């Protein structure tokens, strides 16, 4: 921007100089003529010396002539001197003019050169700056590219690492799960075996307690008049280890309020099942803490 703003003044300066040179050049061409006329004035004097010689008159005339001639010579001489002086002046003037011109020209040349140099310098500077800018830009781009490249590389690296870690973790988990599953299976097998044994051992006990509870409830269940064959209510009983009923509630309703009530009341009417207290505590916890009783009347009239 700065450089471009010098272009117009520079061109103007060049134009002014060119104009001055053109104007001056006509001067130099016009003054070349008088210098060539000088020798012609000197030839005219040599024609006068070969004139007529007559004594008295002649002499007088000669004297006169001589005087006149002298005068003429003097005058010519003066004229010539004047002319020489003028010439000299003219020359001097021309010389001075030329000198001034030359000086000016030189100056102009210097100036031009300076300007040129300046322009060059400026151009150079501009170029330099442009180059510098370009370089800076290039450098920035390069830096950016490099940074991006680095980031990409880093991201890739991170990803790779994360994947590797995830894989490792997954593998670890799989192993762990496998191990756990094995453990679970082993535990389950063990539990099943234990349960099977316990079941076998407790089957008789549970069968007994089942029919015991059934008998207790059958004698305490008062089937209401609204009961119909096919009605079915499931009551959940929570026992205390003492065999007492902690709570009893309808698990699945028959849809008939009186029937549901009668079923729950059958449990509360018994209140305590003494033989439940005699059950092995582990068995009690596992099988008897909560009990479901299905009330499903059979052989009703309707």
């Amino acid at each position, binding site marked *: 921007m700065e450089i471009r703003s010098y272009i117009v003044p520079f061109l103007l300066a060049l134009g002014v100089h060119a104009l001055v040179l053109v104007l001056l050049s006509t001067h130099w061409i016009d003054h070349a003529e008088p210098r060539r006329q000088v020798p012609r004035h000197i030839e005219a004097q040599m024609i006068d010396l070969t004139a007529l010689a007559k004594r008295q008159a002649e002499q007088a005339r000669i004297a006169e002539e001589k005087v006149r001639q002298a005068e003429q010579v003097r005058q010519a001489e003066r004229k010539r001197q004047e002319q020489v002086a003028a010439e000299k002046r003219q020359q001097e003037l021309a010389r001075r003019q030329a000198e001034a011109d030359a000086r000016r020209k030189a100056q102009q040349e210097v100036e031009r050169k300076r300007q040129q140099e300046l322009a060059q310098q400026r151009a150079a500077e501009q170029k330099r700056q442009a180059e510098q800018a370009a370089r800076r830009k290039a450098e920035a781009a390069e830096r950016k590219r490099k940074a991006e490249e680095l980031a990409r590389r880093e991201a890739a690296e991170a990803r790779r690492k994360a994947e590797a870690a995830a894989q490792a973790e997954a593998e670890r988990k*799989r192993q762990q*799960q496998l191990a756990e*599953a094995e453990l679970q299976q082993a535990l389950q097998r063990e539990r099943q075996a234990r349960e099977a044994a316990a079941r076998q051992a407790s089957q008789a006990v*549970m069968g007994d307690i*089942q029919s015991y*509870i*059934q008998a207790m*409830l*059958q*004698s305490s*269940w*008062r*089937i*209401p*008049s*609204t009961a119909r064959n096919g009605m079915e209510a*499931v009551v959940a009983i929570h026992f205390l280890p003492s065999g007492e009923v902690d709570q009893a509630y309808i698990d699945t309703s028959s849809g*008939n*309020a*009186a029937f549901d*009530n*009668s*079923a*729950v*009341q*059958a449990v*509360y*009417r018994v209140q305590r099942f003494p033989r439940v207290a005699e059950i092995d505590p582990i068995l009690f916890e596992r*099988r*008897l803490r*909560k*009990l*479901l*009783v*299905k*009330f*499903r*009347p*059979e*052989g*009703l*009239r*309707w």
Partner: protein
Amino acid sequence: MVIMKRIGMLLMLMLASVMARAELVVEVTQGVEAPTAIAVVPFGNETGKALPEDVAAIVQQDLQRSGFFQPMARENMLGFPVQKSELYFRDWRIAKMDYVVIGRSVPVGGDEISVRFELYDVLREQSLLSEQVTTNRDNLRDGAHFIADRLFERLTGLKGAFSTRIVYVTAEQLSAQKQRFRLQLADWDGARARTILESSEPILSPVWSMDGSKLAYVSFETGKPAIYVQYLATGRRERIQSFPGLNGAPAWSPDGNSLALVLSRDGNPEIYVLDLQSRQLQRITRHYGIDTEPSWSPDGQSLIFTSDRGGQPQIYRLDLASRNLERLTFEGNYNARGRLTQDGRFLAMVHRSRGGGNGFDIAVQDLKTDRLDVLTRSGMVESPSIAPNGSVVIYATQEGTRGVLSAVSLDGRVQFRMPAVSGDVREPAWSPYLR
């Protein structure tokens, strides 16, 4: 991995279901078929004046007569708690009560009395109901029946029918030639009877409209049988057009728009339906046998009636849209005067068993299983009518030479005699639920 997980889940679920099944289930299929034990403790009276009715006694009797309850006799009660603070569940538990009802009457002002009552579950030791009802001193019976209805509904899930009414006909021989017939309206238990029509000629077959606002009956007051409609609120009567010959056994359709009746104008008794608005008559049966005693199914889609077209009286059902005829009764050589419960499941009737001599008894047939149970052993019954909640059947029977009203719970557990009234009592009809 995913498949492994799924399999694992499946295993877990299977295990869970196995565990759930492992929860011990005891099946109870037998029990004691007994009415529910309930103690209705005499209510306290804080009005300062003797009350005209023993509210607790009425409640107790209502519950007992439904057949669903076995109330505790007062003399067996250890105490008469009136408030919760005086109630010791242990005592009632020892007395083998499942429920206990306490209450008290408090004055409201003027002749108004408020009866507060509470129902407790003895075994679970919790309150099931705590309400109050305000009535006039003179209508204390209504309050008592209302309380019984509330208790009944809370304990059985069925709507109580203790606030309903009955109508019946009494006949008195005033002199050798002179008879007096009365149409009477009473509480469901026979109390507070009042005469709504008196005639020197026979009154037959009273029947309620489904909204309980009016009655239809047959009267011979003009010398010939004619069907009348009487509005209970105003006493206004209206004679339905009569036809030559027999006009009898009216029955209101559930929507109240038509009347089924028996006419013999075409020769022998047939069943017709009379549209009460347009007065258009539609013949329903067409048989040379006697078709009589029509009654609507609760949905209004069919009529049940008695017909001897099979050689002996049996009960049939005719679908009104398709005209499909279906015989309902096969047990016994006489089944007549069929009435359906409001759920349409049970059919009460007058029944004579095959080879059972001449005895007529009330029987109820479960239309789902076709099981028939004979509820009475009186040998001479007529006109069964069922309570709107299907719990009790009221009927007329003979006591000596006199007709009286009796009732039996639908399961046959409880039978009771209505209070004696003068004259020969017959043709009871139970009202629908009244508002």
